[in-house]
């Protein structure tokens, strides 16, 4: 077992895999555990980049690029912008759920999943539905399948993104003229449904 680990560590692929694994797991753990939103967001962004490393390792170049663009470029940026509405510099104060229960559940699920995946998979009867084409780049291959077999889902996904965008703008855009982090005592006549609470500190 251990020799196996060592020998695979000697290869480029094995080394990269283990490196990415430890890094992503560590960074994700920081994301989940950290009290500070900024820290956890940063570690999340870093982990996302490293996840794209897995994709490159697996030959899914296009997916890796998308991962970086969408997650790191768009999603994390969105979080970063959203952070401006909230007080990001402060530590989060929350009473976390009993950690014993949490780790028991998490550990259990991890254990079960690992056991399931570690079991040998009978792959003989699995037939590739859209096999990869030899000698064609991954991006081209993906494009061909995506725009022929998955055209309708693709278009639907586009519409869904549009809807989500509009929804996000409308939800966040309402009452933009009211600041929500500043002390609002000056703005006494804001008597609409927005309940503004002072900082509890």
């Amino acid at each position, binding site marked *: 077992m251990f020799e196996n680990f060592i020998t695979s560590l000697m290869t480029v692929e094995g080394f990269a895999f283990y490196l990415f694994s430890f890094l992503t797991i560590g960074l994700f753990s920081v994301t989940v555990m950290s009290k500070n939103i900024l820290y956890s967001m940063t570690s999340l962004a870093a982990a996302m980049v490293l*996840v794209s490393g*897995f*994709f490159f390792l697996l030959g899914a170049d296009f997916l890796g690029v998308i991962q970086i663009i969408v997650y790191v470029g768009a999603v994390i940026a969105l979080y970063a912008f959203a952070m401006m509405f909230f007080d990001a510099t402060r530590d989060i104060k*929350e009473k976390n759920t009993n950690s014993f*229960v949490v780790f028991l559940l998490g550990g259990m*699920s991890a254990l079960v999943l690992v056991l399931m995946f570690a079991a040998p998979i009978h792959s003989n009867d699995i037939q590739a539905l859209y096999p990869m084409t030899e000698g064609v780049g991954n991006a081209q291959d993906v494009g061909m399948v995506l725009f022929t077999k998955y055209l309708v889902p693709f278009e639907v996904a586009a519409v869904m993104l549009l809807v989500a965008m509009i*929804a996000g703008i409308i939800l966040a855009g309402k009452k933009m003229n*009211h600041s929500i982090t500043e002390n609002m005592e000056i703005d006494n006549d804001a008597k609409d449904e927005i309940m503004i609470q002072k900082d509890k500190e």
Partner: protein
Amino acid sequence: MIGLSHYLIVSAIIFSIGLIGVLRRRNLLMLFFATEIMLNAVNIAFAAISHYYNDLTGQMFAFFIIAIAASEVAVGLGILIVLYKKHGSLDLDDLASMRG
């Protein structure tokens, strides 16, 4: 050699970390982060299976999952902002308004 199991196990561990986050944190923003982690874990599994079975379907699923994650973040953050405007907090304990 690195096999499919390796990737799946890493994916399972990351998924469990996400699950722990979901269970442990009370801050809605952190819950969103944890959800992203779980989605990523699933993406890794899909990409790995796609690679080892030489089938593009897994990657297709990963694309759509990324699309869904992006829209979820867009809508979810909008809702978070509205909630924060209304309650001044993102803590789930403060939002316990569902008790009948």
